[in-house]
């Protein structure tokens, strides 16, 4: 009854092309944005913002990046962690060499570095596909990780090998470094993530998204239709790595406050991959849902059992998280390979005809 399209006619192709053609969807998005921009900063405590919302947004961004490459274009990548690292280290170098330029400019710029590196490591996709390509991305992952450790210039020759985030301001407000408030950092991350999600949505709904999906579904037919495979795949690598790079820079500068190479290891690559498998390959919404589930899960495990009187050690939480994630992956692949996003769509379908069963 509530979720009906009846009466909503489109009178032009342009309006038919809208990403959210149904009015109820538009209202829903408006509500979500209102909650994100207004309600959470006003009512949320520091913990909620710092330990839950900021990382959730950052992981969602990285998940979108990987989803563009793996979900939409069908190129399985295990190098996500390393590409995030490229963004983080690029941003660090840029801001320490040019401290007077606005840090947000450097965050975006570091995305371009990541994009370039991603495109280079995407060159093998001309010749290889499927899990062979995945192994090539492992080369990227291990090689770049090695670079983060063995090239001292990247972390300004710091003895410990770690990088520390310097304090930076925007319009007089401190936004990075130990003195930046959680609220401030949250807003910056939120604005960037919303903006980049909008751009990703534009891309996937247009010509480029169709090209990517064509390459994923039947690359031979795509090629015979005139879609050039290598530029399309390289674009996917570049855009995907851009998103991951920005996510990496945000992670270090607006969440952790510092970092070392091990943050961007193969485990990180797998985490993001699991987010999009569970959330839904080829779905922007799925990127958010998957990030939420995988990221929130260990937090829930850490706090709920003690609240119920069952204290768990930190190590045990980690073990149970691994086991649960493993089971969830297999479960989702069996039951709903299109992930939470499809479950959500099915739910909406049912809402369309509710309360009537047909």
């Amino acid at each position, binding site marked *: 009854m509530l979720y009906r399209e009846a009466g909503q006619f489109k009178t*032009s*192709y*342009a309006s*038919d*092309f809208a990403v959210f053609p149904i009015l109820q969807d538009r209202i829903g998005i408006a509500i979500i944005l209102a909650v994100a921009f207004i309600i959470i900063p006003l009512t949320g405590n520091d913990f909620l913002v710092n330990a839950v919302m900021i990382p959730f947004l950052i992981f969602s961004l990285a998940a979108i990046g990987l989803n563009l490459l793996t979900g939409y274009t069908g190129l399985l990548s295990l190098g996500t962690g390393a590409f995030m690292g490229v963004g983080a280290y690029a941003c660090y170098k840029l801001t320490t060499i040019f401290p007077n330029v606005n840090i947000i400019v450097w965050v975006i710029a570091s995305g371009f570095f990541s994009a370039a590196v991603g495109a280079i490591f995407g060159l093998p996709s001309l010749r290889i596909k499927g899990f062979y390509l995945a192994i090539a991305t492992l080369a990227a992952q291990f090689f770049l990780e090695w670079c983060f450790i063995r090239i001292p210039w990247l972390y300004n020759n710091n003895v410990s090998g770690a990088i520390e985030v310097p304090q930076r301001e925007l319009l007089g407000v401190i936004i990075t470094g130990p003195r930046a408030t959680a609220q401030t950092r949250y807003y910056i991350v939120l604005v960037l993530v919303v903006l980049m999600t909008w*751009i990703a*949505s*534009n*891309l996937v*709904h*247009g*010509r*480029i998204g*169709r*090209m990517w*999906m*064509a390459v*994923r*579904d*039947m690359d*031979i*037919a*795509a*090629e*015979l*239709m*005139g*879609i*050039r495979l290598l530029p399309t795949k390289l674009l996917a690598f570049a855009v995907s790595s851009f998103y991951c790079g920005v996510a990496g820079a945000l992670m270090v500068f607006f969440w952790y406050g510092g970092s070392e190479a091990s943050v961007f290891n193969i485990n990180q690559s797998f985490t993001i991959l699991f987010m999009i498998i569970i959330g839904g390959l*080829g779905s922007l919404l799925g990127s958010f849902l998957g990030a939420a589930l995988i990221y929130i899960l260990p937090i829930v495990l850490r706090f709920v059992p003690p609240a119920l009187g069952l204290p768990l050690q930190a190590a045990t939480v980690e073990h149970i998280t691994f086991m649960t994630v493993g089971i969830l992956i297999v479960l989702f692949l069996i039951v709903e390979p299109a992930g939470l996003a499809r479950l959500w769509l099915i739910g909406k379908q049912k809402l369309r005809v509710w309360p009537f069963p047909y």
Partner: protein
Amino acid sequence: MRAPGGPEVAAGEVLLSVENVSLSFGGVKAVSDVSFDIRKGEIRAIIGPNGAGKTSMLNIINGFYQPQQGRITFKGEARAKMRPHEAATGGIARTFQNVALFRGMTALDNIMAGRTLKMHSNFFWQLLRHGPAMQEEVEHRRSVEEIIDFLKIQEIRRVPVGRLPYGLQKRVELGRALAMEPELLLLDEPMAGMNLEEKEDMSRFVLDANDYFGTTIALIEHDMGVVMDLSDRVVVLDHGIKIADGTPDEVKRNQAVIDAYLGVAH
């Protein structure tokens, strides 16, 4: 990359010809020294028993397989090998024996994908989905809607193609090929697996595409009735060799053809 097209080809003139083309895979000869041509505006059937090399022939024209010998002349330009991208920009489109639709996309998106070559708005506008990018989407949507009307698939626009019945999938695939506004349309067994009604519909679409859009058509088909009704000229292949070439009547009476098919008529 060569500039698309070449000189304009008048109706009746040769649009594409293959000369002495041979193709082998390892030790297997798929096509041996085959030559024939396709004239602009005609419907050319390629027939023959299973394994005759018909699909391989289409794949060579399309640029998917590169022949070891021979030449392909398209719109006046001769070349030893055709590249897929050249074929597509030159105006060759095709459908496949096992429907090669993009299963993750809706019927509308599949056909819109066929317009890719004609869409040029640059990356910047794509990022914003505004201005030239949006204008292009709308403009091409108009053309695609013409095709959707032509093929009468309006109701299934938004259905993911994986869920469509086989007959409709074949129609969407035809639509996607037509969306490229091809000069030469290669159809690989467009009627396979269809019942009589569906075949009649598809035949109608093929004829109309030829009439209304002016598309030259080369089709592989097993149903003799369809071949006789639709085609202007026929090429017969058997075991990779051309055994007959002419009008449907001529070919029907050709002894070698009858032998190859063991006298089985549909």
